[in-house]
């Protein structure tokens, strides 16, 4: 569905931010992209909807070549929700805000109305329907930003650092929303340096460093590979660290605190 073939990207100023990146994302996949600051994660994300075009290589989204299609065309399929909600919201009402994307992409009035109602109810924003987006709280603004993008139902959605500045309750809500999206067959790509959050999602993980993909695999394989993590300057989730230190070691690292509890209790009962 989304395919990167030997993609490299160099800035006007001369710095190469992406180097020979090859990657395929299928429908309904949950993918996390991790790596230190400057590894190229956001640059990679911006290549999926044509905001950036590769200097070498090809990116195809549903058979559309991103160098030839417009950002609007590509955004229909891949919706990116950026980190800073204040850099997006501008309308007089929440309704107008959600409708903005739908109208830009040329949907008919009846479709717009249907999608608006869906978005308001799915994201529990009905009571804010006529409220100015700028008056919402931080967590609500973030929810609204995601609602605005999901309103036009792209097949894939990219969340760029969705947990920054969020408290624990908001992160839990976010996790629930991601799982709901997956059950509806959408692909969700999370770019994040919040390792604990990524670990709780148990996604496919891509590790980036210096503009390259260092590894691509399941969370269990990636986060137990200490050499890889060190090279990428990424830390291990605490539950993984615990699984490695505990004696005897469990076969698989603990995914949740309950996994840890059951293993420990089981070991101690012997």
């Amino acid at each position, binding site marked *: 569905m989304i395919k990167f073939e030997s993609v490299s990207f160099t800035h006007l100023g001369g710095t190469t931010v992406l180097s020979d990146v090859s990657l395929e994302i299928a429908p309904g996949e949950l993918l996390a992209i991790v790596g*230190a*600051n400057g590894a190229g994660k956001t640059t990679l994300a911006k290549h999926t909807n044509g905001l950036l075009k590769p200097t070498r290589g090809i990116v195809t989204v549903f058979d559309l070549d991103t160098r030839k299609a417009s950002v609007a065309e590509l955004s229909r399929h891949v919706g990116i929700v950026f980190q800073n909600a204040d850099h997006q919201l501008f309308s007089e009402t929440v309704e107008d805000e959600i409708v903005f994307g739908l109208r830009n992409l040329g949907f008919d009035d009846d479709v717009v109305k249907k999608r608006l109602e869906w978005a308001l109810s799915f994201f529990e924003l009905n009571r804010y329907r006529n409220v100015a987006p700028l008056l919402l709280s931080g967590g609500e603004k973030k929810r609204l930003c995601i609602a605005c993008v999901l309103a036009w139902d792209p097949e894939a959605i990219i969340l760029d650092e969705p947990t920054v500045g969020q408290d624990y309750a908001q992160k839990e809500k976010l996790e629930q929303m991601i799982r709901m999206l997956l059950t509806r067959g959408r692909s969700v790509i999370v770019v994040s*340096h919040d390792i604990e959050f990524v670990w709780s999602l148990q996604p496919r993980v891509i590790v980036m460093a210096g503009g390259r993909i260092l590894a691509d695999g399941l969370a269990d394989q990636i986060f137990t590979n200490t050499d890889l993590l060190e090279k990428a300057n990424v830390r291990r989730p605490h539950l993984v660290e615990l699984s490695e230190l505990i004696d005897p070691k469990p076969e698989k690292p603990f995914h949740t605190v309950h996994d840890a509890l059951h293993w420990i209790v089981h070991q101690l009962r012997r």
Partner: protein
Amino acid sequence: MSLIEFIDYSFSYIGSDKPVLDQINLKIESGEVVILAGPTGCGKSTLLRSINGLIPQMYPGKRSGSVFIDGLDVTTTPMSKIAEKVGFVFQNPENQIFMFSVERDIAFALENLAMPRKEIRERVSWAMDLLHITDLAEKAPHELSDGQKQRVAIAGVLAMKPSVLVMDEPTSLLDPKTASALVTTVKHLHDSLDITVIIVEHRLEILASLATRILIMEGGEIMLDGPPREVLSKREAQVAGIGIPVITRVYTLLKESGLTLPVVPLAPRELAELLSVRSFD
């Protein structure tokens, strides 16, 4: 009298009758490292700003009760006087640096207080040395990383030689590595200057082991107050919706299953060691 004292303090912003702070009674002694945690909207940012006078002097509102910092009444003492006792570091690294070079920015507060040039020079060197940013002295803000910017902000604030360092989510916009480094720096500052530190922070795992005390707020009130290991293992803390370190949650689950470890662990290594000794009842 304690270094910082809140006595029956309540506050609501103009135009709102709901109190953001509700009958706060709090004493903080010199040398403590206090974490202030709680869900969004619990009043922690307001509490912090009540310590250095931003509330109520920059944000007027309805208030009752009093706040004292080293004997000074925060509501009536000019903010410039309080600034010499309380240094405030904000969340956004970008919006606290005013000048075009690091050393000039660190000197900002001192210039405002009309200190003699010689003293400014000494304090700026001292502050840069403390934060290990002497080599950045002539750099402009756009040449600094976010972590470096936060250090510059801390240096600028410490140059006033306050006895309290207040920080409002100083790491929330930083990546994990930079955040840890900053926290370690703050710990060193505390140890070498014996300065009192009060931090609002969501990411408790990076801070909990360095703090002496944690306050959990909700709905404008202080719900829990005590040493981190004690507070974070309580059920009420879990319910408050804050980010309890994963390892501590395992401890609490074990306790509820009837297995109580002698020490509350905050990091994986600690828990692993406790389990290897199989020491619990």
